[in-house]
């Protein structure tokens, strides 16, 4: 049955979401974003998340470059980047990434370079995990849309 595939994928998507919530990777803000998606803005969540990925990668690169500097001392700059990262991460509901950023910021406020480096490692790890999981989620969603689409005649505009 054609529609069946879509239903199974829907269940997969929900299972993954539930898992991510349970693990604290995502929080209710992500649900809020989903609520903002509708037929007038059908790709809203993935659009926002892709902007987030793009910006985050820049921030992570900046953070790494700064900390790897031989004569590093600009903790203020680290904090500026982190504040941005905290802001955007909490805006999409990336709970664990946000928490690690906050811990990172605390280390920076104490001028603790070693602590910062450890936090950066953790942040990169968490961010990668988040990115992979969200990609997985979007893939399932796309497959589901396709599977559901096969059931009904496609209207070409």
């Amino acid at each position: 049955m054609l529609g069946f595939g879509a239903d199974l994928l829907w269940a997969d998507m929900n299972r993954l979401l539930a898992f991510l919530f349970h693990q604290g990777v995502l929080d209710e803000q992500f649900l809020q974003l989903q609520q903002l998606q509708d037929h007038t803005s059908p790709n809203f969540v993935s659009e926002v998340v892709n902007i987030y990925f793009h910006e985050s990668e820049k921030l992570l690169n900046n953070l790494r470059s700064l900390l790897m500097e031989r004569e590093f001392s600009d903790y203020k700059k680290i904090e500026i980047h982190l504040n941005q990262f905290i802001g955007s991460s909490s805006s999409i509901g990336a709970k664990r990434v946000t928490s690690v950023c906050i811990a990172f910021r605390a280390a920076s406020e104490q001028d603790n370079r070693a602590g910062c480096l450890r936090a950066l490692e953790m942040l990169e790890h968490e961010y990668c995990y988040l990115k992979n999981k969200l990609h997985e989620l979007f893939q399932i969603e796309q497959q589901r849309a396709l599977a559901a689409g096969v059931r009904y005649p496609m209207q070409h505009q």
Partner: protein
Amino acid sequence: MAAAGEIFRSNLTELLEESHSGDNELHVLAVDDSLVDRKVIERLLKISSCKVTVVESARRALQFLGLDGDGENSDIGFDGVKVNLIMTDYSMPGMTGYELLKKIKQESSVFREIPVVIMSSENVLTRIDRCLEEGAEDFLLKPVKLSDVRRLKEFIMRGEVKDGEKNSLKRRRSSDDCSPSPLSTTFSPMRHLCDPPSSVFSPLSPSTLSSKKSRL
């Protein structure tokens, strides 16, 4: 679609038409340096049936309002595009949301009357107090939710209500937070408990408040 924010004034007639066509629609000017947040706030507002202009800096906001350095719009002979609400992020490079707030409140009566709401991911009481003291309508803790926008919209739509009514709204929010008694759901307006600026309480537990908040 993403470029909905950066609007510069090019066509005066176009703008005049704009300001007359959506007269019953709230026009909100949102200011945020974060692209992610701009996208989210724009969507929050659009889904709440508001007309939205999103800009990336306080400077751009002032430009949009026609308040950039020149003071009066005498050379254009035009009041500026009608904006019913300004929502601005607090921490922005260059001019902060707080500085933008001050600038607007220092202006002529037309602009000073526009309610300004500050948004911030930092829950710092001194910051909140400072903003409210400068005349901010409210202080929202990020991430901003649909319920925040809806609450704001309802408040603004009611127009320039009497101070008493305004305060009762704020007191209701704060009393919901600091008093567990069911009184807050039955009485209106509240006379006791907290004095303004009591919306200081709202950022502390915004989600609890939005779920506890009762209708007038």
